[in-house]
């Protein structure tokens, strides 16, 4: 009976299998099957008479389209600029609340608040704030309010009218909303560093500068890696903020939507999705190896 060992293994681990089954089905239903279908669609080219599979036609078409190329460039810049900012803001917030002071609980709660507001709401608020020509920000910098008497600009700024400002506002919204998660990860990392170690470093003659760079940062590197990896993935595939705030300047994620709805080309949309996926995997691996290298470098004084 060749099946006997298999059945025995199943019997032995039956509870584990039952517990894992829902998660497995969920992953299979919502990730694996979709991933498979998307990949299949990306490599399928619907010609005028015949359907080709496998075909690279979709990718070739994308590579030739200036819209895709600028979206790709914008996405890369968005992520490259956003990931370190996410880390810095999270770290700053974490260092602020890790020390004990009066009202720390309140400050922490306020820092968590962005998580409680749906992203779409945040995006709409930003849309209203940065509206053109009559948005609140425009009114303030034009000196129309008594509480802010300086006049920076004479004419209202069209925030959504340039790729830079539209994406900057999107990034600001994204950073604001993601700050709590980065902060909590760094905070957990900070709290796992024993006080003894920083104190030992101090008695050995290390200034706070040295303690920070030689002890705290290296010991924090697992948390930093987590933040960088999670946040960069989030930024690659960020949708809501650029969709609401930078409609004229699509990133890859919003371009997928446009390809599907406006170009009426599900296959090209899938191809963009595949490009995005490859980018995410490559970038994550790069960050991983970069951090391993950095950790080694930081130890040497």
């Amino acid at each position, binding site marked *: 009976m060749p099946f006997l060992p298999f059945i025995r293994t199943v019997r032995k681990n039956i509870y584990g299998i039952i517990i894992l089954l829902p998660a497995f089905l969920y992953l299979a239903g919502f990730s694996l099957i979709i991933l498979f279908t998307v990949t299949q669609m990306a490599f399928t080219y619907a010609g005028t008479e015949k359907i080709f599979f496998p075909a690279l036609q979709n990718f070739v078409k994308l590579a030739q389209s200036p819209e895709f190329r600028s979206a790709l460039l914008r996405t890369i810049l968005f992520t490259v600029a956003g990931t370190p900012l996410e880390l810095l803001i999270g770290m700053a917030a974490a260092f602020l609340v890790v020390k004990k002071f009066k009202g720390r609980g309140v400050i922490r709660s306020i820092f968590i608040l962005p998580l409680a507001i749906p992203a779409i709401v945040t995006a709409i608020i930003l849309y209203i704030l940065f509206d053109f020509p009559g948005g609140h920000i425009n009114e303030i910098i034009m000196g129309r309010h008594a509480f802010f008497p300086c006049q920076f600009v004479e004419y209202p700024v069209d925030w959504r009218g340039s790729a830079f400002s539209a994406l900057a506002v999107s990034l600001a919204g994204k950073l604001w909303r993601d700050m709590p998660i980065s902060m909590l990860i760094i905070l957990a990392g900070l709290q796992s560093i*024993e006080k*003894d*170690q920083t*104190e*030992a*470093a*101090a*008695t*050995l*003659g*290390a*200034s706070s500068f*040295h303690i920070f760079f*030689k*002890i705290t940062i*290296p*010991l924090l*590197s697992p948390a930093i890696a987590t933040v960088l990896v999670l946040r960069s993935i989030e930024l690659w595939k960020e949708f809501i903020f650029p969709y609401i705030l930078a409609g004229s300047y699509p990133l890859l994620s919003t371009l997928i939507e446009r390809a599907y709805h406006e170009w009426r080309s599900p296959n090209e949309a899938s191809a963009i999705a595949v490009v995005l996926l490859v980018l995410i995997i490559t970038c994550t691996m790069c960050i991983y190896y970069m951090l391993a290298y950095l*950790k080694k470098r930081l*130890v*040497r*004084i």
Partner: protein
Amino acid sequence: MAEVRFSHVIKKYGKNEVVKDFSLTIFNEEFVTLVGPSGCGKSTILRMLAGLEEITEGDIYIDGIKTNDIPPQKRDVAMVFQSYALFPHMTVAENIAFGLKLRRKPQREIVSRIEESLALFSLRGLGERRPRDLSGGQRQRVALARALVLSPKVLLLDEPLSNLDAKLRLRMRSELKRIHRELRSTIFYVTHDQVEAMSLSDRVAVMNEGRLEQLGAPLEIYNSPKNTFVASFLGSPPINLLQARIQKEGETLYVNIGPCKLALSRQFRESYLHCAGRDIIFGIRPEHISIGESGKGKPILATVDVVEPLGDRSIITVALHKIELALITDAQTISPLRTIPIIFDMEKAQFFDRESGENIICKNR
């Protein structure tokens, strides 16, 4: 190496006074141990000397220089923590080199100093390992090496042996003593273990509830404790403390313990004469009670309750008219429930005031 002086140091957390008027001088090249039960403030004192804790009142001097406001980095004081606090992301050699590199020593000197200290602490060949790949004893030695490689003015040790198993602790204890002899460093050692305190130090400071109870050479404190706390804190098994009464009959002083009457020899008559008729606490160490008919003084009969053989000797708990007493003997043939004669060595006995717990002789001196 240096001299350390605590002058009326007080530490308060809010209204809670953790260290009360602490004064102590540690002389150059001296090994002083601060011993006391947990929570008595001894670690706080050590941390104040290291600069990790602020001083509420009083001053600390290192080599005559007031150090209250000098940050830990600049005190030239090295500390070994109970958890060792090795840097997990650095190798053993990097851990040891940490302080040297911060002091910008030339590379060649750093390498040779690392080699030296690896040899001194029998860590040869472990330089490239990470702390997590070391045993407890090895980590301990790395922590010591990391602190001592800087030749600090004072070496502070905060319960350094308490995370080791019994056998290793014994070895590290003699190791520490050897290192102190070889390097002649000024060492301030904190422990709750009275055996460590007795066996390692030149002088022992016994603390209780934030107060320095007694300071002196180990044997001096052991033989003439200032009060019942110090008496019972040092020694294992602890000193027997019995409710007693001193009585004068004719020209002789007697100590009454329950129904037993023990005569005091003439030489002590002067010292205790003023206590006649007073209730006292009679303290006698287990090794000062002997079994047998012969010896100084009159034997008393007691019933053996528990026998704990240690190999070379045994700890025996006897009941003397419902009073429990521990004694140490090298006799091997004692079995429970037997009645045996015991003799107190009255010359070694201590007498404490019943109310204050102070040693009656010490107080009179």
